[in-house]
């Protein structure tokens, strides 16, 4: 059976196969719904492979994530998995950090070697985050299987925990069932914002581990809250890209969205069924796969020594 469902996209300047785009959206949306990541780090390279210019792929993907994360946030909200207070604090930090990050990149570009820093940051961050989550979840799964020692109280309170207690402005985050200083999400949100701006991604795959390990939120609330925060970040990016660079192809985004919003709904339900540790280990594997792909790209000689401006 041959599908001739082609559609011409004037902003991308190419025609695409609707079925392929819907399928791509579906797969990435599924992952996004399960893990609470925007999926930008997967979708953009796949779109480029399908003949969409890198700048249009990245910007349209942001537009698509707006829809997908709306749908995902709604699904998680109904399941009681969105900590709006925490999400808003992270968002405020994220926007501030993003602004700082954009300036850092501008200065680095003037000094040269910005691309080197971006690539190395990418591989190190992905490697560190993926590796840590993977090992940590593996240990946790082994422990729960053997159930040998119900470890008594933690040997001593870590300096990190002490620091968290000392900070002022404590408040309750009921959804997450934690109490901490509001400075924590603000500062961590800012740091993630800086990293996300440098790396040119939404930051979901950095934000999720930050929420799990540094804010110590329960995994299911992490996913919903991350989607909530990504929604606003991507609204900002879409409007900026459309008005300044004219790189948002909203027809492409809409097709991706239909696929990914459906995928995200299914993903949210799968995520609920999976255990927290399984979820973490699956996300860690995904992050590691992307890291190895990037590392390979850095080490292997490219077929062509020129590339269009806009891709990574």
């Amino acid at each position: 059976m041959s599908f001739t469902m082609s559609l011409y996209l004037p902003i991308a300047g190419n025609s695409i196969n609707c079925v392929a785009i819907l399928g791509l959206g579906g797969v990435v949306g599924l992952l996004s719904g399960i893990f609470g990541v925007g999926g930008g780090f997967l979708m953009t390279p796949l779109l480029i492979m399908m003949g969409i210019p890198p700048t249009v792929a990245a910007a349209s993907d942001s537009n698509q994530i707006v829809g997908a994360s709306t749908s995902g946030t709604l699904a998680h909200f109904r399941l009681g998995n969105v900590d709006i207070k925490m999400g808003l604090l992270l968002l405020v930090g994220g926007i501030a950090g993003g602004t700082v990050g954009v300036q850092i990149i501008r200065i680095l570009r003037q000094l040269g070697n910005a691309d080197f820093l971006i690539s190395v940051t990418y591989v190190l961050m992905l490697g560190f985050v993926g590796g840590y989550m993977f090992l940590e979840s593996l240990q946790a799964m082994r422990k729960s299987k053997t159930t040998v020692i119900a470890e008594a109280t933690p040997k001593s309170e870590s300096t990190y925990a002490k620091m968290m207690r000392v900070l002022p402005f404590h408040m309750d985050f009921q959804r997450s069932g934690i109490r901490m200083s509001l400075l924590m999400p603000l500062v961590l949100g800012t740091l993630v914002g800086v990293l996300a701006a440098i790396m040119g991604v939404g930051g979901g795959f950095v934000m999720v581990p930050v929420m799990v390990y540094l804010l110590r939120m329960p995994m299911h609330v992490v996913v919903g809250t991350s989607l909530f925060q990504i929604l606003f970040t991507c609204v900002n990016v879409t409007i900026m890209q459309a008005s300044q660079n004219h790189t948002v192809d909203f027809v492409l985004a809409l097709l991706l969205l239909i696929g990914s919003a459906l995928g995200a709904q299914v993903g949210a339900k799968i995520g609920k069924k999976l255990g927290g540790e399984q979820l973490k280990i699956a996300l860690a594997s995904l992050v590691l796969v992307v890291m190895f792909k990037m590392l390979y790209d850095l080490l292997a000689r490219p077929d062509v020594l020129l590339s269009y401006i806009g891709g990574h």
Partner: protein
Amino acid sequence: MIRMHSPSCTWLFLIILALIPSMVYASAPMTMTASPTNILMGARYDGVTLKASGTIPAGSDVILRFTGAPEELHLRQKGKVFGLLWMNTGKVRLNNVPKICLVESSRPIDQLGAAGTALQLASLKSTIKVEEGANSGNVDLIHELLLLKENDGLYAETMGDIHLGPDTGATRNFAAEIAIPSAVAPGHYNIEAVAVKDGAVVGQQTLDVEARLTGFPAWLSKLAFKNGLLYGILATVIAVVSGLAIGLVFQSKGAH
């Protein structure tokens, strides 16, 4: 400074001038028609097959070249850093780069002598100018550009779909099909047919082709480029509403 005082020199010059056209195009004149010369890029546009046909001098071969929209191109150059890692090392600015260049010939182009060589993709090396990044070591930037464009399907050199008829008197017919890819940008192009015999050009015809957006793509493109902010807000609102709608549809099916 050249001076031509003697009348005999002037006459010689005029005679040579008069002879040039007949030396280049010694045989019968060429004709060509092409369709479509107006490429309309609507919502269902997925590339188009351009049909060209006409007559060339008897015994000659034909080379067809679809080119156009020369532009300035900014690219990133990849290089090895610390002898280990491949990454973008600098910017390259090239000028006079045709957006597209599709070359088809009725026989392998390297068998068509000097005339063939002059029309090969590699001939672009003499017309494309490297404006920035020329001091980038031993990398042949234009060769890399040709590779990049070939990967995109915008540059190609093939033994194309060309049918040559038998010689009928001083001419023979040709009919060709050129597949124009969907990635071609709106703009002005031309299709050029060059008749080649014994390594020399014996005839040439050029037709203009225009590609332009129409219908929904034209409307969307106008909105995006003329009113970017409104377009961005619209794109966001549509995405949010669609996301909510899909979410509500899912709930109403009572999946949980």
